[in-house]
């Protein structure tokens, strides 16, 4: 699905809490990203009785971001589990359930709380298919509300995706729009491999069209979401909105940015990125994460290797700083902004 086809389709506004008896959605609806994920989870649970949800406060409360709201009523306590408060325990038992043939979808309440489960994810979940010579699949999805821009306290605004992208055996994705969130969560659940599903929590409330009939792209695809000629800019999750904002400002200044939504961080779909760079000759990679040893570093290295003769300038990275996420009062100076992206665009154009 392209943005253009959505905008020409009939749209209906969907509001309010999820209805337990809600029929399967068809056509195009306007949803917030949070509710798009809710709808995607509901579809996946209706389509496969082995899909179950696990996490802290996800049942009666519907999750601290209300993403699982209404699902307990529809699917019951054996499919929407309010677990004890222990992340390693949640992921470890999800592994056992996957061994039994279930497809658990785990919610980690906030990005910074994933580390108690780090061992189970990186040393167990990621390797069990290999250790079983392929006789056992590990279809576990770990949903992680991540990233800043929400003015929250320590450990609530982090972007830990690189740790998981670095780990063989895992897949890592991050949607940037309600439509992608709706489809990508279902595709992640359908994957027979473990998927880290990073949800840009600052975009949870942003609404957009969701075409419930057409997904458009496989899970691990990147795509150009805005055409341009001068500089390619790449990002994922909430950073995509920042890139679009930067592109708008650049356009006013007579500069044309091509925006690529990465969508998948492991594996990375380099096709659209390389195609774009071959035309523009310039690449800026933006991310909320620390820059050192990051997904952005990996993209910079790979594009330099594979598009060397197309590049007019070195690949530039715009990241947060290599410091812990600061007190929220300073987050606007810490997180990459449209201005910081444009500063990098200027530097790229100066070559």
């Amino acid at each position, binding site marked *: 699905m392209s943005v253009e086809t959505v905008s020409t389709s009939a749209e209906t506004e969907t509001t309010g809490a999820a209805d337990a008896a809600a029929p399967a959605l068809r056509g195009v609806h306007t949803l917030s990203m949070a509710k798009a994920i809710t709808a995607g989870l509901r579809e996946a649970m209706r389509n496969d009785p082995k899909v179950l949800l696990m996490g802290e406060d996800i049942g009666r409360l519907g999750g601290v971001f209300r993403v699982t709201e209404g699902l307990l009523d529809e699917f019951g306590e054996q499919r929407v589990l309010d677990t004890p408060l*222990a992340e390693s325990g949640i992921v470890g*038992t999800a592994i056992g359930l996957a061994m*039994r043939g279930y497809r658990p979808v785990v919610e980690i309440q906030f990005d910074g709380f994933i580390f108690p489960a780090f061992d*189970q994810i990186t040393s167990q979940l990621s390797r069990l298919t290999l250790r079983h010579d392929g006789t056992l699949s590990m279809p576990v999805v770990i949903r992680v509300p991540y990233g800043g821009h929400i003015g929250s306290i320590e450990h609530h605004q982090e972007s830990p995706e690189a740790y998981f992208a670095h780990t063989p055996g895992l*897949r890592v994705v991050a949607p940037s729009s309600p439509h992608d969130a709706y489809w990508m969560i279902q595709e992640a659940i359908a994957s027979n491999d473990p998927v880290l599903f990073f949800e840009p929590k600052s975009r949870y409330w942003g609404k957009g069209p969701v075409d419930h009939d057409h997904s458009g792209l496989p899970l691990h695809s990147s795509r150009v979401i805005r055409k341009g000629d001068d500089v390619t800019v790449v990002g994922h999750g909430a950073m995509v909105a920042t890139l679009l904002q930067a592109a708008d400002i650049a356009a006013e200044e007579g500069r044309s940015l091509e925006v690529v939504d990465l969508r998948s961080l492991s594996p990375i779909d380099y096709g659209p990125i390389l195609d774009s760079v071959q035309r523009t000759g310039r690449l800026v990679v933006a991310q909320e994460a620390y820059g050192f040893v990051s997904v952005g570093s990996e993209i910079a290295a790979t594009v330099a290797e594979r598009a060397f003769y197309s590049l007019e300038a070195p690949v530039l990275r715009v990241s947060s700083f290599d410091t812990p996420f600061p007190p929220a009062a300073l987050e606007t100076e810490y997180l990459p902004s449209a201005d910081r992206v444009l500063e990098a665009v200027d530097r790229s154009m100066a070559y």
Partner: protein
Amino acid sequence: MAAPSREFTAPTLQLLTHEGELRPSAEAEPYLPIIEALPDAALEQFYRDMAISRRIDVMGANLQRQGQLALWVPSHGQEAAQVGSARAARPQDHIFPSYREHVVGMIRGLDPVDIVKLLRGVTLGGWNPAENGNFHLYTLVLASQTLHATGYAMGLQFDRATATGDPETDAAVLVYYGDGSTSQGDASEALVFASSYQTPQVFFVQNNQWAISVPVSRQSRSPLSLRGGGFGMPGIRIDGNDVLASYAVTRQALEEARSGVGPSLIEAVTYRMGAHTTADDPTKYRTDDEVEYWTERDPITRYRAWLEARGASSAFFDEVDAEAADVAADLRRRALDATAPPRSAIFEHVYSDPHPVVEAQAAWLEAYENSFEGEGQ
């Protein structure tokens, strides 16, 4: 004023004294009928299992010293704890081992060569639990498997594969770990989840007194069995060198678990007679007196004495010795035949679904290695 002393104690349930007399402790009395119901063949099988386990231990340690294994993990001294508990499980039960339960795997039908391959650096796992008596893979990160076991047990509940009232089909989960592992957070989290969901599960802690070089007193000030009560489930401490106690108590705990009563924890007090692994040197941290004390409590010696007193013939023991020697020799032969897998094993099964990076790297390595063909001849 002297500091108040805090003593925590728990009775140790024993059926067979270390001299080999069937003289149940008070706590053990109720378990006697479980043993009395066993036919002679089952009792003899316990001995056979333990004897084979010990013989394989010698073989494995030798292979390692001869440079044929990266590591050997001995069970010497812990045979009764392992054999009794493993024989207590029903075929439909699921076993989640740590990495020392070789004889448990064999009892469940696993070819021990698969364990040897893992320790030889030929595989990372090596068997399919579904084809090997539901004996799951070894887990080397301590206590990680306790959570997998609990999750699996939750799945049994959701599938209604347990607590239907039919002990012939109702399944339960038995998970093994050690005294060192009890300090891991995962071990506690597994107890929390198991208690919370009332899983059909038995936690079997082999307290072999030593986590490599650190004594159990560093892991716990109180008997490990008391951890059960702290998490809301029964905790029973048994003489882990008493195969009858190990069998009877595990049997009952598993039957209760499969009936829907909930999980329980068993602490089997035993001793690692040998080193932690062949990389260890226990003479650096423990005394000869201690080893002597436990040698007098050897699980096989006492059980043999009891079987002999019951009238087992010397021919039986000779036959078992011969069988154990054959099993060990055969295993040694096949261990030496276990060679490196093809290089494609680096890439296969990292993911279940196709993965472009893995495929590209596999193709690259193949081309790279092939580029040397014809050279150096």
